[in-house]
């Protein structure tokens, strides 16, 4: 809580750069995680439909989060 208040003294340009960096890092982590999850679902699933539905749900939900993050970054 204290650190967040102290952060208010941080230059907004630096904050924006840090959040951009976080965005790129989380995108890489997400891509890696998606490939690994997708591999497990399609390789070890007991049917074909479940991994397709799971992948679609996972990607749609993640896309919403990424859109919100990208939108807020464009506002900074």
């Amino acid at each position, binding site marked *: 809580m204290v650190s967040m208040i102290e952060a208010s003294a941080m230059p907004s340009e630096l904050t924006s750069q840090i959040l951009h960096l976080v965005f790129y890092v989380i995108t890489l982590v997400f891509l890696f995680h998606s490939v690994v*999850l997708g591999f497990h679902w399609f390789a070890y699933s*007991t049917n074909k439909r479940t991994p397709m539905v799971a992948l679609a749900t996972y990607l749609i939900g993640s896309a919403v989060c990424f859109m919100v*993050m990208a939108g807020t*970054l464009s506002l900074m």
Partner: protein
Amino acid sequence: MLVEKIKLTENEQIIKLIRKHWFILFSRTVSVIFIALLPIFALIGFAAVESYLPDSKLSAIYSYGAEMTFLLALWVLLNWMMLFHVWTDYYLDVWIVTNRRVVVIDQRGLFNRVIGSFRLERLQDMNIEIKGLIATALNYGTIEAQTAGGSEEEFRTAGLPDPRAIKALIVEAADKLENHYHVHHDATA
């Protein structure tokens, strides 16, 4: 697909495919959702403190609307990824009962998968354990199968639904296989 990977032998048929009880997934999902909602609870807490202590300077947080929204979306995304991680762990833990053997698959995280199997004729003993109020009410528990052979092995999985029925199913399949061998042996003798 999993069924192709376990390579069923000739005349081998899958009798039942068993996953853990739904409550196991439900309780883990609720935990993840609760953690995902923590920032919302924190913001509500800040607002409550702010209303009692107007000089607390907590309102400074709200002047960073875009940054806060970004961090919230990031938090939700991380929890969303964790949710699917939890589901994968649940979905890939399977007991496959065939008319010849039992295949036990234990997914322990994403890069740790333990696959064991025992032939029904090697089954020596099966124990079930239903422990706790929720497990008793919802009828799930631990199944332990001990097999005989060169090295005595033990197969153990917690959180399986209706353990008594699973035990009965496996014992029945083992008896059927034994009878089949007896009939076959008598016919050839």
